[in-house]
């Protein structure tokens, strides 16, 4: 019996889906949302440190991006452009609502001030440690200027290249790199006394 291998259909490109969406195809919208909702949420969450606010930023970002497709001139990828819109929406929301403190953040820092041991990465209760580490990272990120925070999150969380971050933010690649250096420097300075290697 012959074995026939049927190649899987390649996933439709973003450009194809956008064209379908522009013609009113709602399934194209669903696919675009499914494709980028996770990444958009992680970026928004890192910038806001609050689940509900991050979901609002994702919603606002998708609506803005898709309602203003004529602004997307194809100079960057749709992913890069969408993440720019979502991260800007997150920063706007953060300014409007005041960047909320992460749940339990005050307790985590307070325990350190009371002389508790810094968090260790080699601890059996790893899930709890991860949550505390994330809260510390959230607090550290809040100390960064907005431009550095946005640049850092787009690179570290969305894993955009230097060029993609530069395109998203309308800055030079050199500026991206220097912002990354100084952001890491500030984050390290904040975290170093609070985390043991």
């Amino acid at each position, binding site marked *: 019996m012959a074995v026939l291998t049927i190649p899987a259909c390649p996933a439709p490109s973003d450009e194809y889906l956008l064209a379908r969406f522009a013609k009113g195809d*709602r399934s194209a*919208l*669903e696919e675009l*949302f499914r494709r980028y*909702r*996770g990444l958009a*949420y*992680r970026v928004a*969450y*890192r910038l806001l440190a609050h*689940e509900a606010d991050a*979901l609002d930023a*994702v*919603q606002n970002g*998708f*609506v803005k991006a*898709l*309602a203003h*497709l*004529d602004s997307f001139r194809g100079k960057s990828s749709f992913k890069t452009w969408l993440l720019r819109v979502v991260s800007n929406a997150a920063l706007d929301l953060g300014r409007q609502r005041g960047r909320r403190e992460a749940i339990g953040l005050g307790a985590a820092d307070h325990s350190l001030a009371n002389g508790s041991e810094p968090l260790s*990465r080699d601890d059996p209760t790893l899930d709890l440690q*991860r949550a505390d*580490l*994330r809260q510390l*990272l959230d607090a550290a990120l809040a100390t960064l200027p907005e431009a550095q925070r946005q640049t850092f999150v787009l690179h*570290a*969380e969305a894993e955009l290249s*230097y060029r993609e971050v530069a395109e998203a933010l309308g800055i030079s690649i*050199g500026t991206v*790199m*220097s912002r*990354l*250096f*100084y952001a*890491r*420097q500030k*984050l*390290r300075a904040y*975290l*170093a006394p609070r*985390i043991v*290697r």
Partner: protein
Amino acid sequence: MSQEIPDELPPELLAAYVDGKLDPARQATVERWLMEHPDVAEELAGHHHLIQVWRATAVPEPSAVTWTAVFERIKHSLATAPSQPGQRRVFARLGWAVGLAAAGLLVALLIVGRSAEEAAKQLAEESFPVAATHEVQILGLDAADTEALVVGVPPSQGPLVLATAGEVRILSIAPDPADQMVAELLLAAPPDVPMIIAPMVPSPEKAP
């Protein structure tokens, strides 16, 4: 890159080193430099550690139910937004037209509402400073305002006269011999609009 060890390395280069984006030659140069600068080497080791901590603290994903709710809200928002870019532009133009018409109507009402006689009377009673060119020093000027700046020395050969447009009769207009520029006159002004006249001494051949 040069084989010499520089005193400092730019932050862009150090960021690229941490991200492993340097070619082998540059990476080797940075590593040689870091051997001479242990404080910076420790700093960059901290940056590496930060990246590891970041990757170890992944953001938890919302549930499928949450995503469904968000998607429904996005669909609803998009359904109520203008569907076509052209349609949105038409709405914007209409909005601008209505706004400008309203502003124009308001300005016209303000102007008509004030009686011309009151304006002339008020202007005659108010005193305002008059300065000669040498008494004025321009400290700054926006480029957009340069059109309002009169350049040159006005032909003021006597005391200034306050008159209304209806009291002035233009006999002739000729370009200034110095720069061949013709003065711009408000010929369409109502007859009772106040004007400041700098009478010139008429040349003999121009006397009526």
